[in-house]
């Protein structure tokens, strides 16, 4: 099997912040490699530091110390302007709340993402990938939660990011809808080769990934390699 290239690497990363006079060590000495094209699930209980890890990985937050290397370049040293450019050219995001533009339809919302990419003519293709071809002209208030989340996935994919970060993408959804969303992410990964980093507290979701990083109290205390990925439809929910 071909060795996958390391796309993102963390070295000795610490993240500490003050909260009401108390120093909180959110991340402690994190070393991590993310390979291109893989699906990595960051799993852990509430307050474990998963979202902090995702924010630091994606450049949304800066580490207190350590290096974050993307294609060999330390993005931890980037200015805000450079980070914005970096995210525009390389990263996609989806969050638990969809945060779509309510006065634009499905296609227009996806185009908002496409306009950041180099090519803007793949919008219909992306909408097909997420299974919303029949809903292009609909507005957000006409869609269900799952459909809205799929729109946000399409928006993020439209600019062809190298890595997609998903923070609790199914947190606001029921089991059926949540599985549809996970299926969408899998298909995006398989068809477009986008690296996926998914944060969740749902252990069932961990089974869809190539690797599972278990985070507890700011450290990765366990790393599980899934020999085969489970289909989203088969995973236990909850």
């Amino acid at each position: 099997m071909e060795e996958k290239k390391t796309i993102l690497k963390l070295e000795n990363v610490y993240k500490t912040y003050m909260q009401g006079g108390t120093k909180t060590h959110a991340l402690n000495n994190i070393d991590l490699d993310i390979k291109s094209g893989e699906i990595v699930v960051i799993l852990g209980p509430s307050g474990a530091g998963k979202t902090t890890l995702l924010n630091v990985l994606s450049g949304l937050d800066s580490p207190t110390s350590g290096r974050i290397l993307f294609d060999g370049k330390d993005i931890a040293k980037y200015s805000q302007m450079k980070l914005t450019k970096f995210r525009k050219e390389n990263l996609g995001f989806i969050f638990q709340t969809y945060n779509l533009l309510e006065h634009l339809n499905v296609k227009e919302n996806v185009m908002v993402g496409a306009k950041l990419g180099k090519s803007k003519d793949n919008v219909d293709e992306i909408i097909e990938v997420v299974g919303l071809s029949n809903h292009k002209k609909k507005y957000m208030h006409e869609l269900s939660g799952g459909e809205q989340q799929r729109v946000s996935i399409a928006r993020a994919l439209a600019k062809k990011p190298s890595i997609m970060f998903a923070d609790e993408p199914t947190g606001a959804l029921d089991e059926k809808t949540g599985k549809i969303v996970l299926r969408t992410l899998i298909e995006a990964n398989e068809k477009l080769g986008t690296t996926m980093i998914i944060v969740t507290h749902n252990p069932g979701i961990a089974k869809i990934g190539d690797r599972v990083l278990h985070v507890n109290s700011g450290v990765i205390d366990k790393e599980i390699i899934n020999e085969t990925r489970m289909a989203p439809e088969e995973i236990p929910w909850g």
Partner: protein
Amino acid sequence: MGLLFLNAFKGLKFKKVQMIGIIFCIILSTSIYTAMNTALDRMEDRYHNYLKEQNVEDFSFIPKIDYAKDYTKEEIEELKKNELKDIPAQQMNLVNQYQMTIGIENIPNIDNLYKAIEYIFNNNGANDKKLEGKMAETKQKYDFNYTKETVKVSTHDKYLYKSIPYTGSETINVPYVVEGRLPEKDNEITVLPAFANKNDIKLNDKYTIGETEYTIVGFVNSPNHIFPLISINRPMYNEKTDNIMYMNEATFEAFSGVKESSYIAAFNDREKTMEFETLGDLFMNDENISLNPLTALKLLRVNSLEAEIATSRLFSEYFLYLLLGISIFVIIVITKKRIEDERLQIGVLKSLGYKSLSIAVSYLVYPIIGSLIGGVIGYGIGVLAHEPLTNMYVSYFNLPIEGFKINLTYLFNSTILPLILLSVLAFLIAIFMLRKKPLQLLKEGSNLKVNLLSRFVTFVTRKFPFKTRFKLSLASRSLGKLAIVTLTSFCTGLLIVLVLIGMNMFESMISKTFDGLDFKNSVSYQAARTDTSEVDDLIYNTSIDLIKVKRENGTIEEVDLNKKQNNNRMMMKKSENNEEEKEAIKKMSVTMNGIDTVTHYITIKDKEGNDLLGKLKDENDIIINKNISEIINVTTGDTLIFENADKEYEFTIVGIQDSFMGNQAYCMRNYISTLFEDTVSYNAKYTSDPKYDNMSNIPEDEMNAITSVFSIGDLKDNMGNQFESSNGAIYFVIAFASVLALVIILVIANIIVEENKKTISLMKVMGYKNKVISQIVLNIYTPFVVIAYLLSIPAMKAILTEIVKALTKDMELAIPIEFSIIKALAGLVGLLVAYYFAIFISRKSLDKIPLSIALKRE
């Protein structure tokens, strides 16, 4: 960027109230701006050409005749046989007296005689030949042409007439025919178009003045009466009662009225215009002519339009900026609100890689749409509304006007200017608010900040009842909205207070000016008279210079007006080294009124209302008015030293009159008149004799001795009418201010409802009634509105006081600034009515908020 803009644009339909508020503010400001400037353009364009085409006079001059040297006894004898042969006996006596003084030097008090002779000679053309010789060189030197203008002024019932003889050979002040023609035959007259309009007069109508019937053959403007200030004795123009008539020479000779003659001149270079002070400087050292002080009045008639135009343009510009300023505040609040509401979406967009600049541009939809729609509509309304405004100006200023021309500058200023101004500011605010990092925007609760004021209010109100605490907490949470409501209330309050003070100021000025004046007419004579009267108040007026003050402790101080008012502007020169100038400001010119201690009409009272006349007991007692006492800082007991013809006269202050007009002083007539005349005399009287109501009833010999007849009743009525008609404008301003406040508060209330949707929904879920929710959530700014209004009262008083000080520093006038409590309350009621009406309308949107919003997660 286009899609973000499209999203914002499509969202406008959910922000109707806010959008309409901005558009309304822009419509209001641009329509008033366009209407005023379009109306002024029509007048201004015509004005300058009119002055040239009709060759309007540039100044009036007095020939410098040295009555001590220029005439010989023989020349006077010739004049007595020719130009002066028909003058009344009393005037002939004065001429004879003058003839006897020729060749004699150092005659005491001769100046008064010379003044009288000057009046008689000028009025009867006696100086014309003497002048011709002197003028040939002078008019070439200054490059002007001149002529002698003779008019007659008369009053009949309430009407004031100025009659001007028309010869057909006028070269200066050429009359302008609006309709009809100029008079040719006897008893044909023309009237002012405004007078004809107000009195429903048509061409060829018959018109009677006194016993004579005239035929009106034309509606004609007198070009040097653009503002038809016919007589200084009636300073308030009334279109209905004040008229200027042209008539042929025969009709003019037969017309009964007080004759006024003056020499008027127009520069050959019609581009040359000069201010009064500059003209004074020009002729200061001329040997042959001096500037006639009446030039100031004459220039006022012609130039006041220019000042009015300049003032109006300034007003319209500042008004535009004021309303745009308020619009800017509203847009800032709306932009801020939008960004706060959409922070999660913005957070995701920034995560994806959108720059703050791209996102900020999308928020320009409010200023762009508001400016374009509001500006275009406002411009259109302004163009339509300019006509009635123009007609209003034209009825007041007698000037033919140009037709309407589109001026695209106003369209530009109505659309592009607000567009640029509002867009730039909205953009800057958006950029500032979008400075946060994506993570900060995405953090839940990051929009729920508590500012310092809010913390302070929470601390201070911790023991207050819940409703009050909640209301104050809501109000203090958003400094932006609080600032807008407070600022709007403050500005509206300023406008309302300005109007109410203005109304009160004029009413107070009228009553204080006319307080104590119970007579009907004031009659002034050319020379002193010695007859007596049992029914009239006889007065001897003279102008005398106050030079020193002797304090009660004996110290003597010179009058020093370097930093204070000097009302003798004619003596002031620009050169700092001039000795005359330095000396001029060491004197204060005072009008000394010699009166009798027993009067029928005159009352002189102090500030407390006590009568002061009884205090005039000795011949050296004097009563001064408040103007003098404040300028040179004197009080009862101090002694004033006056100078006239190198002699000094001392008077001791026994009272200070509560009056605001001029530098007036009162002393005993039987003393002051004998200082300058041979015996006890008078040269003016206050009378209620009805014969002075109509000049045609005054005997001819007395008429020829009169300088002016001043009707107090007419002046008071005129002033009252003028202020009544401007009440319409006053009520308009109050209505406008209230509507503006209503719109702004409506927009803010709308934003408050939007902002607190979740809280309102939660309160409904908990069981609060809509009425109670409305009281708690909407009715939060009442104390701030009231406080802002109350603060605007002293603020406007202070502003007005400074403005009045600046305006009156060169005038012999002080204007009281007073404000009654009842009017203050009336203004507050007006503002609160607008406020509660806005709240009432906003309740509708509050009622529409569903309960389900409380259950939604943000």
